[in-house]
């Protein structure tokens, strides 16, 4: 696993011991520690501590702590303007004005709500952006095949539909073989049917690649279908942490995938909606 040096946003002293021992890392998120890190003993791929960010003096993040274990899918839920996307941008290293500490062990890739493909590069070149090595072409072809777009390598982004473009964006992230996928409402701009297809695509890819993911979403159902654990962002902090005990999210031969029809799903959904302030009808 490629190890990127810890990013210390405060510029303070970094603890070298903490960087090598993931499980014993003293930096922990709030909430019940036992359920927090997914598979027991798995090293944390991402640790964030006391992340703060204010816009014009108005605090949006007021000390967020979170840990994501290797291979774990965590959904970040929150109302509009709760700072979900701000937090993801901080974790992606795109926000220079945030304070706190984030530590990424391994590599991360980002999928944004908009596909953000470069319009002047063909689909294949977009996926290959920043890649080096002799086998780039083969890796790109494989990634495009995985999202079902093997035949669109020579297409321009403008020739793709919204769902196809977003699949290319997923391929662009995937081709880097990230340890952590940061997803910022990746299916938010898609129509309902395409969103369902994208969700099952993501489940399949996760089963095959085993990456960890932080999924920022405002869709409670999406969070329940895809995540191992749900974090609620409210008032600038992780206000609540809810493990999703609905069985593994991915589809395997011996059992069907997680679905909204299974027992417990509705209750959990109601609980989350209550927490988000959506009244029952």
């Amino acid at each position, binding site marked *: 696993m490629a190890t990127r040096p810890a990013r210390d946003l405060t510029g303070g002293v970094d603890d070298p011991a903490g960087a090598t021992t993931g499980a014993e890392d003293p930096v922990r998120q709030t909430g019940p520690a036992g359920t927090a890190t997914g598979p027991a003993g798995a090293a944390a791929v991402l640790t964030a501590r006391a992340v703060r960010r204010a816009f014009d003096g108005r605090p949006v993040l007021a000390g967020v702590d979170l840990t994501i274990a290797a291979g774990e899918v965590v959904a970040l839920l929150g109302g509009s303007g709760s700072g979900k996307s701000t937090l993801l941008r901080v974790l*992606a290293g*795109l926000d220079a004005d945030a304070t706190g500490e984030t530590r990424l062990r391994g590599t*991360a*890739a*980002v999928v*944004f709500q*908009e596909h*953000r*493909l*470069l*319009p*002047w*590069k*063909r689909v294949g070149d977009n996926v290959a*952006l*920043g890649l080096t090595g002799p086998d780039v072409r083969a890796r790109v072809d494989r990634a495009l095949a995985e999202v079902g777009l093997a035949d669109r390598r020579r*297409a*321009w*982004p*403008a*020739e793709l539909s919204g769902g196809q473009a977003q699949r290319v964006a997923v391929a*662009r992230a995937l081709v*880097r073989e990230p340890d952590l996928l940061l997803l910022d409402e990746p299916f938010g701009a898609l129509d309902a049917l395409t969103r369902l297809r994208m969700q099952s695509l993501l489940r399949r890819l996760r089963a095959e690649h085993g990456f960890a993911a932080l999924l920022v979403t405002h869709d409670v159902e999406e969070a329940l279908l895809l995540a191992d654990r749900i974090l609620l962002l409210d008032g600038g902090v992780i206000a609540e942490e809810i493990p999703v005990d609905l069985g593994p999210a991915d589809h395997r031969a011996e059992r069907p995938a997680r679905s909204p029809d299974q027992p417990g799903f509705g209750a959990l959904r109601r609980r989350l909606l209550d927490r988000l302030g959506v009244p029952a009808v």
Partner: protein
Amino acid sequence: MVTASPAAVPAPPDAGPRRRAGRRWWRLVSPVLLVAGWEAAARAGLLAEDKLPAPSRVLTTGVRLAGDGTLGVHLLDSLTRAGIGLLLGGVLALVLGAAAGLLRIGDDLVDPPVQMARMLPHLGLVPLLIIWVGIGESLKITLVALGVFFPIYFNTYAGIRDIDERLVEAARTCGLGPAARLRHVVLPGALPSLFLGLRLAIGAAWLSLVVGEQVNAQTGVGFLMMEAREFSQTDVVVLGLVIYALLGLLSDLALRMLERRTLTWRRGLRAT
């Protein structure tokens, strides 16, 4: 002066390729009629020979001057001046425009004086330039360079500023450093704007040349016209005008072809 031509505006969606081609031919009718009317009026003696000679007369004069090599020499000199001026002014504008567009300190230092200088009509600087650089070759080249500078500077600046910040961010998450972002995001993103700047600049270059070559030139198309005026060779004067027009037209056409080849991705954009 060549400006962004109306052909760059996309045709209305209902116009099929066939109808569009038909309409283009239709647009030729009035120019052809005008030239034919001009010719007829000249032959009928309605236009005085020394005021406006017939188009056929201008054409034969052109063929004669091209045949004895006079035209070639003058044309080459004019083209050289335009080329050197375009290169000097263009490179300077590109460097300063990029500095102002990319760096905050560049923006603060470079842009205010350029914005001030923009208000000066550069052709009005001729008296001052004569004092500064004399009446020789450097005057013509300086004038062209000045004319070229502003459209390229402003379009470079605007092209860089208009790049979608989110694309730059996405490139960053793909591990692209500043140099790679410049190459893969900023340059291609600013290219359409750079082409527009270049087209406007070439128009400005010809315009500057027309004025510059009327000041103490010994060669060049402008000199040819000034000399002809002294001998009342109206046909040569008109020929010079036609050559200036053709130069503008051809350079614009060449640039548009280059643009179409370079910016293929925009055609995909239009197709959807």
